[in-house]
């Protein structure tokens, strides 16, 4: 029986996101696999993360990087077998690393047997498992998500001579959640993986489960109802398992997915992410403060997931046009960097390989409220390749060393699932795990130590946040608090040195202890506390009252 605290493990998690295909290839076929991943678990344990989020590894025609699933209860042969997965899972759990996998609930691949059956004839029992229509005019006005490739949310099926609904690519027909059979089938899938030992699911594209005429077909009450029912069953049968929502919406709309603590455990805070990038470019804390002020309170057992980058484009859906234009002009001047209202670049290139800025953003990620997610490769400052199609530029092989295929695979370089990054700045000869491991001052070593520091204090994962708003707008300062534990975090968002006076009246007589060097700073007195920061510098102070 798990304790209450164990049930809330996701609050204290530091999640590392990767696709098994990109990490390590054990059988020299040029594609990463579970055995390879298993061999790298020590590295991940050393890094200090305690949860892994794996992108879809199911059998799939791979026309949407695995999000078009053709079989929910198996493993794509390129990545290994189901047994390989089980072995990996056991090894991860041995190292106290939990595993979160994808559950693409909204749609399947058109190669999935369910769809093959559904389209075969109108009388097929699985016909009603998908959303069909005689015309393409139902659900008018609903927005198209993949703007660059799709013209409509309806696609014509030449076999059954009717239209089917798809919010994503046309080869990903939406499942019909009004059909209890579909819900039951999904539950069976979840059970399958929970029984194997998976610790949680990221439910992909949850806002779009249900369609109704005259609505935006997003975030409908029926969708929440379905989630609630799933959650209830999970809590009863699999306590301690976690559901993470992927809902790219405004905070007020996303927080609905927490319900009263009876829907999702976690959800991504999408709108915060571009604003962290914006704040650094603008050298102004305003974007961050404003979006967090607009973020409603969530139930005690729930948690936001925060992140800097992920496998998708840096989405600019939840920003105003002005903000989007600004982000494009500052971070994606080359139009090749843009896709689907977003920017398909990695963290380090976006920061122009400025180590200080990378550290600043990582520091923000690890000190703001929420469970942080680190995208694979960002801990060593990997680069991207914007000339690969779709969003594959940020999904290149992990760079382990400066040798053959960056240590990713023993296969011929031409056989790799994706070319390596090989330019002089971000290439694997310059940026790789081995060389950074040798230096105590590399980005990797730094990231490790910051994660280690964070892991020592629960205040980061569970504490409240109170913004100090000093008159210098280039400094973002806040206090994290959990019981008696208080952390003062001060970040200089600008490229020039700054002085800031903080009103710390509430913490009078406390002694700030700088957490990376463990040095004492002058005690807080009656006057405003003066700090000076170098460009992009930040402080984590533990406020101790002795």
């Amino acid at each position, binding site marked *: 029986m798990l304790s209450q605290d164990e049930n809330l493990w996701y609050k204290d998690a530091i999640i590392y996101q990767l696709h098994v295909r990109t990490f390590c290839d054990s059988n020299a076929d040029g594609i990463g696999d579970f055995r390879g991943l298993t061999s790298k678990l020590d590295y991940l344990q050393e890094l200090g993360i305690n949860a892994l989020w794996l992108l879809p590894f199911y059998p799939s025609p791979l026309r949407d990087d695995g999000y078009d699933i053709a079989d929910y209860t198996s493993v794509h042969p390129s990545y290994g077998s189901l047994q390989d997965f089980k072995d990996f899972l056991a090894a991860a759990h041995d190292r106290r690393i939990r595993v979160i996998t994808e559950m693409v609930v909204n749609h399947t691949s058109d190669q999935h047997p369910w769809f093959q059956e559904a389209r075969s004839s109108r009388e097929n029992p699985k016909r009603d498992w998908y959303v069909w229509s005689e015309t393409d005019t139902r659900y008018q006005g609903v927005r198209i998500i993949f703007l660059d490739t799709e013209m409509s949310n309806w696609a014509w099926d030449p076999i059954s001579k009717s239209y089917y609904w798809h919010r994503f690519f046309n080869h990903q027909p939406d499942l019909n959640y009004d059909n209890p059979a579909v819900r039951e089938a999904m539950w069976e899938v979840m059970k399958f993986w929970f029984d194997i030992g998976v610790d949680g699911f990221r439910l992909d594209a949850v806002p779009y489960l249900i369609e109704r005429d005259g609505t935006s077909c997003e975030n409908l009450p029926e969708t929440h109802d379905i989630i609630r029912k799933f959650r209830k069953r999970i809590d009863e049968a699999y306590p301690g398992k976690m559901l993470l929502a992927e809902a790219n919406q405004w905070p007020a709309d996303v927080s609905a997915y927490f319900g009263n603590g009876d829907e999702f455990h976690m959800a991504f805070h999408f709108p915060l992410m571009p604003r962290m990038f914006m704040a650094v470019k603008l050298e102004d804390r305003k974007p961050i403060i404003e979006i967090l002020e607009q973020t409603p309170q969530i139930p005690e057992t729930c948690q936001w997931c925060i992140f800097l980058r992920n496998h998708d484009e840096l989405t600019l859906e939840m920003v105003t046009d002005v903000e989007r234009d600004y982000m494009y002009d500052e971070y994606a001047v080359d139009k090749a960097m843009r896709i689907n209202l977003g920017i398909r670049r990695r963290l380090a290139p976006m920061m122009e390989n400025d180590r200080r800025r990378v550290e600043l953003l990582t520091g923000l990620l690890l000190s703001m409220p929420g469970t942080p997610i680190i995208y694979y490769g960002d801990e060593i400052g990997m680069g991207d390749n914007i000339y690969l199609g779709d969003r594959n530029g940020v999904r290149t092989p992990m760079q382990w060393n400066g040798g053959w295929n960056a240590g990713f695979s023993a296969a011929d370089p031409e056989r790799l699932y994706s070319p390596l990054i090989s330019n002089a700045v971000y290439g694997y000869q310059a940026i790789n795990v081995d060389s950074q491991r040798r230096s105590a001052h590399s980005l990797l070593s730094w990231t490790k130590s910051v994660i280690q520091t964070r892991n020592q204090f629960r205040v980061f994962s569970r504490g409240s946040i109170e913004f100090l708003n000093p*008159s210098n*707008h280039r400094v973002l300062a806040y206090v994290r608090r959990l019981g008696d534990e208080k952390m003062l975090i001060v970040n200089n968002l600008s490229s020039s040195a700054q002085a800031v006076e903080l009103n710390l009246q509430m913490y009078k007589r406390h002694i700030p202890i700088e957490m990376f060097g463990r040095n004492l700073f002058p005690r807080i007195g009656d006057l405003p506390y003066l700090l000076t920061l170098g460009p992009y510098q930040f402080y984590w102070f533990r406020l101790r009252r002795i």
Partner: protein
Amino acid sequence: MAEESFLADDFLRQLMSVGEVDLLVGIPSYNNASTLEQTLQSVDACLRQDFVRERAAILNVDGGSTDETTKVFEQSSERKGPSHKGLTSLRTIHRISCQYDKSPSQGWALRNIVAAADLLRARACAVISPTTANVTPSWVANLVRPVYREGLDFVAPLYARSRFQGLLARDLLYPMSRAVFGQRIRELYADEWGFSGRLASQCLERNVWHEEAVRARPQAWMAITAIGGGLKCGQYFLGPKGAAPAGTGPDIVEAIRQTVGNFFWCMETNQAYWLSRSNSQPVSTFGPDHELSPDGIPPSPEKIFELFRSGVTELEPILASILAPDTHAQIKAIALSDRTKFHFAVELWVKTLYEFAASYHHTVLNRDHLVQALVPLYRGRLYSFLLEHANSSGEEMEAQSEILCQEFERQKPYLVERWTAKS
């Protein structure tokens, strides 16, 4: 011993927090609680709409208001919509306030504004008056944009006037400044204008802030500093000039004392520049073409003529010491003429003004008194103008105005001769 700084500690601290800006909008105030909010909203809206990415600050310089002016400024902060999605603006729009402890005047307020512009390294600045009732966001944008984007150093406003509005500017200040300084800037004494950070820094260095002439009307001095320094000037059409509420705004005597006094002082301190120049050049003008609007009832001028006539009589000894004998004689002659046939010729008017300017230079009597002695003569000219143009269209009046300007330019050598004569 170091000179005492005029920047208060609190003001300096606020500037430090802001750091650096691209745009600075200064609002000098004195007991403007009723109108300040409106002005702030217009400025704020302009910055949010037209200068989305620029770093901006709004500075309120208060002359010691006894009403709620400073409170209004403090409380006016960004307003968010009820359930707002996304940011209200990309950047923080800073608000800075300061007070100066001298008697309220535009000059002291401007000193603080240029100091802020210099310390904040602002590229473009504007001064907006809280007393102008019809300021819109586009006004602010039109004053700032030519400085920020086109590289001008001084931008004066252009107003759509009605026929009988702003006659002091149209019949005296503009033609005279055009002839003397060679730049055709129509509104040198407006309440709102734009300028560059570069010009602000230059003005800050000049130690003229204690001069009465600069304190009352610093904007023309700023423009003339720009002209004298070879910086680029321009003007932008804003819209109709709102009429000041009845009973407010300077009366004719005060207006002449401030503007003409200031102008003569500028002539005095910049003589090295203008003595050798002739002709005038147009300046960059932005905005649509516009004319004098035909509305505006000509005011009844009888009293004006009476004041002119009595002024000429009562001030005879004073005028005798200022004007050349034949000019004085001509003026005395027309003062005796029939009111209905009265005509103050353009040539005589120009000659009169130039003789006043030269006498100012030679300090034939106290300078403020000299400027005040001009008031009855201006009234005479005004009366003549109103009589002549009672039924004129805007176009006709503009044409006459151009003739007046050319007369000023034609007689400039006479001014130079009187100015440089031994006293």
